[in-house]
């Protein structure tokens, strides 16, 4: 069984159909890219999977469980990590507080979290991730004081903190400098080897072609192609979607 599966997922915004009858599957241990021109429904698809928006129709299955309509926080606690195109941080908290907050709800209960001091290695892990992302020197800075690129890295670090089995990354390398882009790709590969599964929305084709084993292409909310990177590169429907059809 796939780790994540959507069946006939559809999302309408009034009369606009953003995602149309989308069947999508990710197997455990894959790195899959979702690409497509602007407005093709990629982020909306992520939003429906994590129930930021309720899907108009269709079902979502994660770990063989129907998660359609579950609240976002519950889906996250089931082991789905998610980043956004627009960075989601707690701007009035420090970098380190952001890191710890991203994992604390994955253990214990509301009341036990009032009394417990146990961090189960979270502090150490937060240090390791910040170190890797070259932002450990900023750990006591307020998140609002970071540059866009640094905020993007923090956002990426936060999603990895609870070790989610499935990670949905929305343009993880946009606004990040070249060298760091390579490091992020290496890190994703490394985590993938350790068993984490990734679905990546990305406009940078170098990242897509070098990182992902399988690519799904959306256009106007519909899946127009699916296959290995070399197949997608030569797919005429994909070329037409990106560059238009010659009259």
């Amino acid at each position, binding site marked *: 069984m796939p780790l994540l599966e959507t069946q006939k997922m559809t999302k309408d915004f009034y009369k606009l159909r953003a995602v149309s009858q989308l069947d999508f599957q990710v197997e455990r241990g894959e790195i899959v890219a979702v690409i497509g021109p602007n407005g093709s429904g990629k982020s909306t698809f992520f939003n429906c999977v*994590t129930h*930021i928006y309720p899907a108009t129709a269709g079902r979502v299955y994660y770990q063989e469980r129907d998660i359609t309509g579950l*609240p*976002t*926080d*519950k889906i*996250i*606690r089931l082991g789905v990590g*998610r980043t*956004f195109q627009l960075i*989601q*941080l*707690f*701007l*009035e*908290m420090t970098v380190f*507080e952001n890191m*710890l*907050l*991203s994992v*604390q*709800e*994955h253990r*214990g209960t*509301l*009341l036990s*979290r*009032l*009394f*417990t001091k146990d961090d189960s290695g979270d502090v150490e892990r937060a240090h390791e991730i910040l170190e890797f992302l070259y932002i450990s020197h900023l750990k006591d800075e307020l998140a609002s004081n970071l540059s866009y690129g640094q905020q993007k890295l923090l956002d990426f670090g*936060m999603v990895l903190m*609870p070790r989610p089995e499935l990670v949905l990354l929305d343009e993880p390398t946009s606004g990040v400098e070249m060298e760091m882009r390579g490091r992020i790709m290496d890190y994703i590969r490394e985590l993938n080897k350790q068993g984490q599964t990734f679905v990546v929305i990305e406009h940078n084709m170098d990242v897509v072609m070098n990182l992902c084993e399988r690519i799904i292409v959306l256009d106007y909310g519909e899946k127009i192609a699916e296959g290995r990177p070399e197949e997608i590169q030569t797919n005429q429907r994909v070329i037409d979607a990106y560059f238009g059809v010659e009259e």
Partner: protein
Amino acid sequence: MANFIQLLIGGVSMGILYGVVAIGFVLLWQTSQTINFGQGELVMVPMFLMVALHIVLKIPFWPSFVLTLLGSGIMGYLFERLMIRKLLPGGVLVIVIATLGLSGFLRYGMQIAWTPQTLFFPHLFSTKPIELGDIIFSPEDIWNIVLISVIIIVLHLCIKRTKLGMAMQAVAQSRETAELMGINVRHIITLVFVLNSVLAGTAAVFAAPIFFVRYDIGIFLGVKAFVAAIIGGFNQIRGALVGGLTVGLAETFAAAYITTAYRDAFVMILLLVVLLIKPEGIVGIKEEAY
């Protein structure tokens, strides 16, 4: 000078009481964007509960106090689950109207169900004045200041130093991001309503001997606390405290040095001045307008 210090102690004692009720306004606003105009009634109802338990049923003070806080907590829980949760998607205006309605229902319900009379409540502490040289003050004021300060410090530590407090801060900063971190925002909002009611219940026990127990005391305390939260800063807990102290001191000094007839008017003038000069409040943080 002695008179000034006496007034200062009295003003702080009154102000810290307003502050603790105002903290509830701020907590609710930050976590759920709710303005609760029934806040004063969340003080009034526990006052009557305390009278019922301690005076009518003659249950000793401390068990009555604990039962009152328990009752307050249950009231806050029901308030959130039966009313706020259903109305929250409708926005702040719907909540304002609904809480105004609830406030009237509780106030006049208490008047009809129990009494329109003012009920006496015994002092919690000795009222025999203490003399320090020329300065004469009431031990009740000092106890109020000390005990409410301890409650506020414990609350502050819970919010700043515990994981639950961090989750509350997270919800206050961004509900969407909090959900993405796996925080159950609905539970946090319920918890904050319970916490707010318990704080209001605590304020009720301290306020009952000072203001006595009346069905309409909630208007007086609710308005003062609301004004305090605005003056101090509606988006900061410390703002509520600063606002409470400012209101308490302003009305005490105005009554002493200007006239008692205009003590409330003086507070309202202060509110207008703050809104004109620093609309976000004394320690409030300016928020972006959308």
